[in-house]
């Protein structure tokens, strides 16, 4: 399925991209993260040794969240607003 992936802050800088559309065989956020980690060194910032937060459909989500065709996913560091 085709998904839109957004990256923010230090994750956006490390990957060198703010948004991409990607055809994925993954069914969950965990699977998509695995695919990205295997896609090249630019995605090393998504390593599970790092604090990475995720959103699905613009809601904070964990890795178990299930993808749907056309969904919007985001990866970013811990938030620091306020």
């Amino acid at each position: 399925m085709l998904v839109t992936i957004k990256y923010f802050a230090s994750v956006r800088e490390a990957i060198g991209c703010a948004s991409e559309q990607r055809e994925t065989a993954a069914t969950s956020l965990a699977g998509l993260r695995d695919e990205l980690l295997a896609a090249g060194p630019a995605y090393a910032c998504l390593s599970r040794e790092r604090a990475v937060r995720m959103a699905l459909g613009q809601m904070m989500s964990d890795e178990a969240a299930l993808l749907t065709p056309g969904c919007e996913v985001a990866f970013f560091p811990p938030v620091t607003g306020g």
Partner: protein
Amino acid sequence: MTARVSIQTQDFNLAMEVDALRQSDKRVGAVCTFTGTVRDRNDGLSVSSMELEHYPGMTEKAIEAMIDEALNRFDIFGARVVHRVGFLQPLDQVVMVAVTSAHRGESFKACEFLMDYLKTQAPFWKKEQTPEGARWVDARVTDDAALAKWGIELKNS
């Protein structure tokens, strides 16, 4: 009725925001506000400016949901949150929360709840300019602890 959440680059005027929130509502006996401003120091280094990034769309939804939760938990009439993004310097205002209620206790609690929630669950990121170069601000464990005291166990840092 004015919007409950605004994400904007321009500054805000607390007095005008409070007036709009009260809207001549004679039930209101208490207004509690919090304003966050940019400090000139953080984590041992001087800060000359910062850039605030956010996730358009998600930010507004997240804060709207936090206000709904505050309305459920506390006996309050209304709440307003304004958060700035973009380039900011020390002394600049960053964020304001205003809450109205009949008595002060509920507005005090709801205002603190909203700030604790926003700090760890609203998608904003700060990048500071320091004498050692630009750096992304680290999330604080103490902010997760502040949210936990409301019974919400969500990990950010």
